[in-house]
């Protein structure tokens, strides 16, 4: 009969940690992007009106690099888990789910790394002034 077992009382400590890592792998990069977007937009709107494009530009690049670090970290965690799950011969349903979450983590982190760089760094390479002055 199916592999549904008696209710699991306490999820084993190690399993809970792995789950937290899996969710960080998926949601870490989006959270970093969301923080970068809000902070950068706030600084850009306030900073630009107070004038001084160069000072704002520096602040924004710092914010972007911090967000980038978190996003890349999430990507690495997801990638490590993806390679790790290949080796483990756990019960097939759990293995399929863990590999699915790890794959989603890698793809999600990759897309948000591109988005953080595109939104955070590329504009400073092209734009030179703050309008309206």
């Amino acid at each position, binding site marked *: 009969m199916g592999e*549904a077992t008696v209710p699991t009382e306490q999820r084993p400590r190690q399993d809970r940690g792995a789950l937290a890592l899996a969710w960080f792998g998926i949601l870490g990069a989006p959270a970093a992007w969301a923080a970068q977007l809000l902070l950068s937009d706030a600084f850009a709107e306030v900073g*630009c009106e107070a004038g001084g*494009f160069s000072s704002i530009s520096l602040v924004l690049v710092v914010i972007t690099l911090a967000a980038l670090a978190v996003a890349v970290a999430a990507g690495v965690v997801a990638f490590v888990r993806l390679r790790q799950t290949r080796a483990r011969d756990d019960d097939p349903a759990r293995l399929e789910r863990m590999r*699915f979450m790890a794959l*989603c983590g890698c*793809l999600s982190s990759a*897309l948000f790394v591109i988005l953080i760089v595109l939104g955070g760094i590329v504009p400073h390479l092209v734009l030179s002034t703050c309008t309206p002055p």
Partner: protein
Amino acid sequence: MATATEERLEEIWGEEPGPVSWFTTGDHKRIGRRYIVTALVFFLLGGIEAAFMRWQLAQPGSTHLTPEQYDELFSMHGTTMIFLFITPLFTGLANYLVPLMIGTRDMAFPRLNAFSYWIFLGAGIFLYAGFVVGAAPNGGWFAYPPLTGPIFDPGINMDIWSLGLIFLSISTTAGAINLIVTILKLRAPGMSLARMPLYVWAMFVTAWMMVLAMPPLTYANVLLQLDRNLGTNFFDPTAGGDPLLWQHLFWLFGHPDVYIIFLPAVGIVSTVIPTFSRRPIVGYPYVALATVLTGIIAFGVWVHHMFATGLPSLGLTFFAAASMIITIPSGVQVFAWLATIVRGRRPAFTTPFLFAIGFIVVFVIGGVTGVMFASVPFDQGVTDSYFVVAHFHYVLFGGAVFPMFAGLHYWFPKITGRTYSETLGRWSFWLIFAGFNVTFFPMHIMGLLGMPRRVYTYSPDLGVEGLNLLSSVGAAVLTIGIALVAINAIKSLIAGSKATANPWGAATLEWATTSPPAHYGFASIPIVHGRDPLWEQPDLGSDLTLTHGREILGTTITDADPEEPLPMPEGSVLPLVTALGFAAVFVSLLVGSVPAALVSTLLTLGLIGAWTWTLGGVPG
């Protein structure tokens, strides 16, 4: 021949027939059907408003409608189609299908489900009360102050709008929370996150977006009400306020809302196409993740609705980048559908499949014009012109109403137990497809010719009168097509042949129940071993019949390992009465009588108390 278990379950889950159970039911199937029918009535009202607008705009300078009437019509057309038609309809469809698709017997909170429907019905009537008293909302569906502020729109028009939306947000948020908890806690054993049907993924992300997007709209409407009636100055620039605060708050809700409309449609198409291509979707993890990423990025693009407001261009580039990158998940989904069709067997050209194909064609046009709007200078060139009207009709009508027709035809046998007529279905598809394109494609050109949006008339020398006439003719053809769908539905309800349990030979769990499903849904909770249960496992039975009482099986979030059975409440009239209490509160706020508001608030609190008295079960 019903087995002993099924009789026992019918006894537990059945409802005594007759009118009383109509008001006390918590059955997700009855509430789902009710949501869909009510939403289709609002679709009819929204369509009538659109017909009036096309009649007025057919020729330049026509005087069929006065400016006031036209403003009320286009405001209510937008508000109805977005808030009262498409979102509630997809909520109703999800209420009906998600419990069956994840192999359980009802939503997590049946009474809250009934309450959500009654509040939605109340909010719909509340919003349309405007027409009765001759003061329908007239500020447009995004109601920018100061035009909708106390000085320039002193009537109760906009009070009806913003109070109505606060009232409606109770229903939307409650419905979304109900859906999320159902999907998290009630999936059949074995249905891990990697095996959830794509429609369930889509509704899961949509529900999360509703929970996170409604509060900014509600807060913005609270501020608008305070500005209009208590003299606060959040949006009054002379006293420190800023009209752009409203735009930021509204579009922080607005853009996620258009994806709240789009994602259920994506879920439906990802279910319909694999069935008629006779193979699982190509790249399931990519499509599931694409749905999640679309939902996340949707919260970071809202300023592309404000590119022309003079914000610093450095700030705009963040949102331009996000608005461009958000098209990648949608592109992944389109190519996954295409790959499924290419690698699948010879497709069966049934009506749902035709609408899904029509959706792909129309949505890609809408999608590519959408990418153009992400480019700031182009957006500043053509926003608020008829080009944007064409774009959002391609992604909203094309992107959500086409899949809605696909879904309604696809699940019509399951929901009603009857078969619709394929010939009528095909005719209605081609009429709708032709009518839609003739109505809305010319609007691209009107926009490029400089015709601004929301004008009750236009001058002949703008060069758009021929296009407007063509568009109005197209609207007539579109109306005929939709009327044909209605005829097909009514004819099949009366005289349609009986439908089998799985007429399309589909893979998802809802097709394992009878058509229409019994009150208890599944005789025994199925145990799932893969993504396409009906294709992979011939017999789904298990010994989880749960005939102890009215209860369903709680399972863990990631792997759906079984936990305790969860007791489910009986039907009750409290949701309806509590919704009436809320309606009394909002009506007294609208008429501005403080004593009535206080009394109705106390009454409502009392009713909530009565409802929550037995929450969490009572021992013994």
